[in-house]
């Protein structure tokens, strides 16, 4: 087990390094200067600004400098929001994204497993068909469509929930949370349904029923525990999906999170912010995948970890 963990950890660090390098060179090979947008800038001021942000040094020197700084926990300074470090921006904005992300993940996992289980247990009934119909749509509709349609319906036509959300009350979570969780919810429902259908035909379920256990114990203790395993493997892609989804959802609902400011810094060519946030998100995703992998092998001992 320890050998496996170390191997995976090293692989994750390697991936992160590759991502960092890719990000760095892609950002710097991009012509176009972030300062030119401001208009009346004389060549002297431009040179001073470039010197301040280290943009005048050779690329490899900059690369080394940036890598060393990252190891010290310094992601540089934002060019557009002067005087603010990228770490500060992340610290200020990420909590919003995190709260919304956790809320959406919880909704997706809870409703997904419940709906999938109901669908599997009531296979080919009306309930199953309705659930499968909804989730088939959920997989096909992009999140920005879900967001805007639900905003018009439940924010404007029927003003039940706020359309501009600062995530300060439960009702302000509902619309963005729904938009962000609809796809993963649908996906988990489908996963859960097929895996539960598999599980309830297994011998151990028959044994559990045969020895007279109540249906509740059979489903919850023997069925669900095994049926939920594929959902755990989906956790990695789900986190990635919710994160990318947050770029558009936060912009649509004017949530002051990291996703919406990432999109604005891309258009503003704010290199340090784009790079810092990409590396932050990349590290987050890569290590979440790492943990999910370890947890999965921990809860399902059938998988040979030494492989």
């Amino acid at each position: 087990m320890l050998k496996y963990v170390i191997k995976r950890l090293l692989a994750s660090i390697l991936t992160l390094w590759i991502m960092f390098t890719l990000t760095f060179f892609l950002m710097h090979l991009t012509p176009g200067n972030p300062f030119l947008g401001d208009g009346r800038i004389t060549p002297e001021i431009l040179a001073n600004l470039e010197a301040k942000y280290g943009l005048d040094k050779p690329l490899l020197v900059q690369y080394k400098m940036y890598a060393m700084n990252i190891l010290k926990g310094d992601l540089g300074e934002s060019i557009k929001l002067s005087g603010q470090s990228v770490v500060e921006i992340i610290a200020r904005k990420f909590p919003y994204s995190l709260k919304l992300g956790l809320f959406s993940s919880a909704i997706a996992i809870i409703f997904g497993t419940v709906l999938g289980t109901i669908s599997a247990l009531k296979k080919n009934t009306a309930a199953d068909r309705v659930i499968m119909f909804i989730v088939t749509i959920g997989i096909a509709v992009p999140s920005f469509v879900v967001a805007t349609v639900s905003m018009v319906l439940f924010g404007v036509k029927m003003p039940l929930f706020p359309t501009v959300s600062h995530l300060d009350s439960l009702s302000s979570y509902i619309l963005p949370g729904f938009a962000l969780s609809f796809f993963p919810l649908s996906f988990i429902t489908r996963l859960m349904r097929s895996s539960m259908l598999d599980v309830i035909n297994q011998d151990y379920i028959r044994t559990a029923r045969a020895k007279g256990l109540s249906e509740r114990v059979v489903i919850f203790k023997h069925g669900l525990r095994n049926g939920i395993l594929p959902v755990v493997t989906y956790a990695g892609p789900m986190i990635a999906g919710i994160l990318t989804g947050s770029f558009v959802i936060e912009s649509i609902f004017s949530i002051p999170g990291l996703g919406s400011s990432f999109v604005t810094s891309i258009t503003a060519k704010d290199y340090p912010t784009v790079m810092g946030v990409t590396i932050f998100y990349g590290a987050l995703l890569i290590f979440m995948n790492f943990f999910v992998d370890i947890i999965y092998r921990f809860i399902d001992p059938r998988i040979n970890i030494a492989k």
Partner: protein
Amino acid sequence: MTNINKSEVLDSKMFLPASDKEKATAEVMRPSVGYWKDALTRLRTNKVAMCSLAVILLVILAAVIGPMLSPYAYDQINKGSENLRPNAQHIFGTDSLGRDLFTRTMIGARISLSVGVVAAVMISIIGILYGAISGYFGGWVDIVMMRIIDIVYSVPTILIVILLQVALKTPIDNFLMSAHAPEFLKKLGVGLISIFFVLALLYWVDMARIVRGQILALKEQEFVLAAKVLGASNREIIFKHLVPNCIGQIIVVATLKIPEAIFVESFLSFIGLGVSIPMASLGSLSQMALKGIYSYPYMLFFPAATISIIILSINLFGDGLRDALDPRMKK
């Protein structure tokens, strides 16, 4: 060990010629059904898949010939008819510049569909080559190639897609400005070319994995040995014997990549990185509609509904195709 003469044990007089009636029972009752014909029959009986196919064909028809039949051009600005609700002249209404939204939605569908199809083709070419080489040669070639796949797989794709989009924009733009750039590329525009590039670069991994898995199993079979004995080169074995044998899976994966590519394109267009104006894609149309969402919700409704219908029907058709071409994978 005594040598038994068979004719001493089995007397030929014990055997009689079979009567015609007896012969008839051994006859093949049905003509043998080939793989494709069998798959087609299965697909035809799948109502959901056939309905989806009909919808897809309808959308393709509208996207290909629709804009030609329309009295308006997609970038034609009609003064005095701004922000019209759907009516007899403009059945999807007009946008804030008076452009006909029906024509623009059809153009958008054309862009989205071509992004999907071109991406699927490029993904297939790269994925098949990569997977076939990795699976066929095995050994350290396979190990190295699979490590690369692992890395591409674990890098957060959408972040790299966004970065590439940003980074590629200017070099491609410069190339298009230069004299020797082909005319058709100029027509496509920077946004679309970089989307194709990005999709081809990052989304071939699933295809490569599946092709590799198939080839690993297939290359141990006798027909490969026979081909080798007959002196076929590696290239002939891969492309004449192995790849055609996994074409079923390849088609299924390629079909399911189309909606994924459309998804990515609309997402990028929505955050403002996709096609450049006045060109319209379904994602950029939705994004533009967002500004006037409270007053003119219909501007969002049509492109959003079109994109959802396209993705839904290709997904359902792909599922049907999988059940038909690869019954073992049926869920």
